[in-house]
């Protein structure tokens, strides 16, 4: 009965991540455009110092809240700083926060989740602690953490990361618990492989696909959370422009100069939209249950 080689079963998630771009082409325009937008934003951010017309930090009292001009392509903010330069430089920091939060929370969550899925005793304590951490509203926790450490870049990343960890831990743990019942894991036990080896070589790779998806969502939500923290006055110092704090500073002028929110908001939304779309695409491709439904 099982000798079937249906086309769907050939699309096993084996090299799922590697073959992603190829599969994406089948999915049509949306994800492709998203990928393109993201690549453009990243490139623009990386090479920002090479082409920005002004130092994003230089203030100029005589050029406050000016409209677009040759000198200031998008106008200036309330300190007379060049909005264009700030937005593209802000991309660097915002993306860094997004990627940083995603990488750190996924890495820590993976480690804790594997341990938790492995050691039954540690599991009880770790999961209680994770429950507690989940129960604390993440924005409040983040504000408190930023207040604790001062609004430096790293404390913002830490504040965004910490509330994400329990979700990653739960994800990893659930994968570990379900995969450890798989026959090939039991076969590995029978072959005398040690538990750490099984965890790392057999179980961990199974978490990579869902973690990639989760990572994209964390990345997107971190960028957004940073903006909200800035809005609430607990964000990164304006010495380091981020989309969040550009908007937070600009929101006071929303009615007289909407571009202060519009441009960083547009970039942020485009960026998050792209990341989320790619995350969705990855999930659709990597989730065998959904694929089964595609027939």
């Amino acid at each position, binding site marked *: 009965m099982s000798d079937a080689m249906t086309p769907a079963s050939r699309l096993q998630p084996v090299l799922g991540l590697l073959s992603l771009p190829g599969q994406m082409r089948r999915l049509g325009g*949306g994800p492709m455009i998203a990928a393109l937008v993201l690549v453009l934003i990243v490139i623009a951010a990386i090479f920002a110092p090479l082409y920005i017309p002004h130092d994003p930090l230089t203030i100029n009292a005589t050029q406050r809240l000016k409209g677009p001009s040759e000198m200031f392509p998008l106008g200036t903010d309330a300190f007379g700083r060049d909005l264009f330069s700030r937005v593209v430089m802000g991309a660097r920091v915002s993306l860094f926060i997004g990627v940083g939060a995603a990488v750190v929370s996924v890495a820590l969550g993976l480690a804790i989740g594997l341990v938790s899925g492995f050691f039954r005793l540690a599991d009880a304590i770790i999961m*209680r*602690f994770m*429950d*507690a*951490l*989940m*129960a*604390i*509203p*993440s*924005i*409040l*926790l983040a*504000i*408190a*953490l930023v*207040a*604790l450490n*001062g609004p430096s870049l790293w404390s913002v990343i830490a504040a965004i990361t910490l509330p994400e960890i329990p979700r990653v831990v739960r994800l990893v743990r659930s994968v570990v618990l379900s995969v450890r019942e798989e026959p090939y894991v039991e076969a590995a036990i029978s072959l005398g492989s040690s538990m750490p080896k099984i965890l790392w070589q057999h179980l961990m790779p199974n978490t990579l696909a869902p973690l990639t998806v989760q990572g994209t969502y964390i990345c*997107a*939500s971190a960028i*957004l959370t940073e*903006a*909200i923290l800035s*809005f*609430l*006055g607990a964000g990164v110092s304006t010495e380091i422009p981020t989309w969040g704090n550009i*908007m937070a500073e600009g*929101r006071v002028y*929303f*009615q007289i100069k909407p571009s202060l*929110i519009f441009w960083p*908001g547009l970039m*942020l*939304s*485009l960026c*998050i*939209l792209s990341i*989320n*779309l790619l995350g*969705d695409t990855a999930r659709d491709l990597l989730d065998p*249950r*959904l694929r*089964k*439904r595609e027939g």
Partner: protein
Amino acid sequence: MLGYILKRLLAVVPVIVFVAIFVFLLLRLTPGDPAAIIAGDAATPAQLEKIRASLGLSEPILVQFATWIGHLVRGDLGISLISNIPVTELIGQRIWPTINIALLTICLSVLIAVPMGVIAAWKHRTWADYAVMTFSVLGFSVPVFVIGYIFIQVFSIQLRWLPVQGYTAPGDDFGKFLSRAILPCLTLATIYVALIARMTRASMLEVLGEDFIRTARAKGVGETLVLFRHALRNAAVPILTIIGTGFALLISGVVVTESVFNIPGIGRLTVDAILARDYPVIQAMILLTSAIYVFINLMIDVAYSLIDPRIRY
């Protein structure tokens, strides 16, 4: 069932204890001094020290913790360091706007999002599906305060349909409550609808692939009934979960929305308390929200067993 609820309630205790210790330590390690906030700009160090002593902040941390826990088990959440009003009273003043807004938002969101998700799953890979998915991704991608400003600009300032800000208790004047709550609720609902619609779609997609859906179709059951009687109820557990855990998100979103629309809720109370280092209020609020979260999870689990007869505790 009752035994299960009891057991779950017992399991809440360690969670709350963890939260309590965590929050207490976090706050006491935080720089900032409520005494300095109370005393204002012109205070001298000696005056600050006196105020600190009168607030009980000069005691060793362990003593402070023991005092707090001691009061806590007696149900006494303490007195706000800043306004000198019992924390329970403060929360009592501020919690209803948040709860009312949150409930209205949930109702609104579920009414919008669930049909959206169902249709998206049913019309999988059609324009309807893509439209719903695009909206739900978009809903995630725009900061909530930007959405709020846009709504104010459009509905209050340009069209002049709705008031800009403020809150009226539904008991005082329900019409006024609705007119003032509708914009903040819509603002909050943007994310919430996105979240629920996504989850509904994903869960429905999975259920629609199940054998019993094929059975129902084989019986000649119409599509509407297949979707809502057979599929939705089976898809309900993850949807309920997201509605419940989304509540935490709602509380976070409420903080921002409360600022934009000037609603005197607990979100602002908490943020103000954090910024003013009003320890008893922060501790109480975080404990309270954690307790609400845990309680909602319990309610969800109980609801599971009502929805799905296979789940029995």
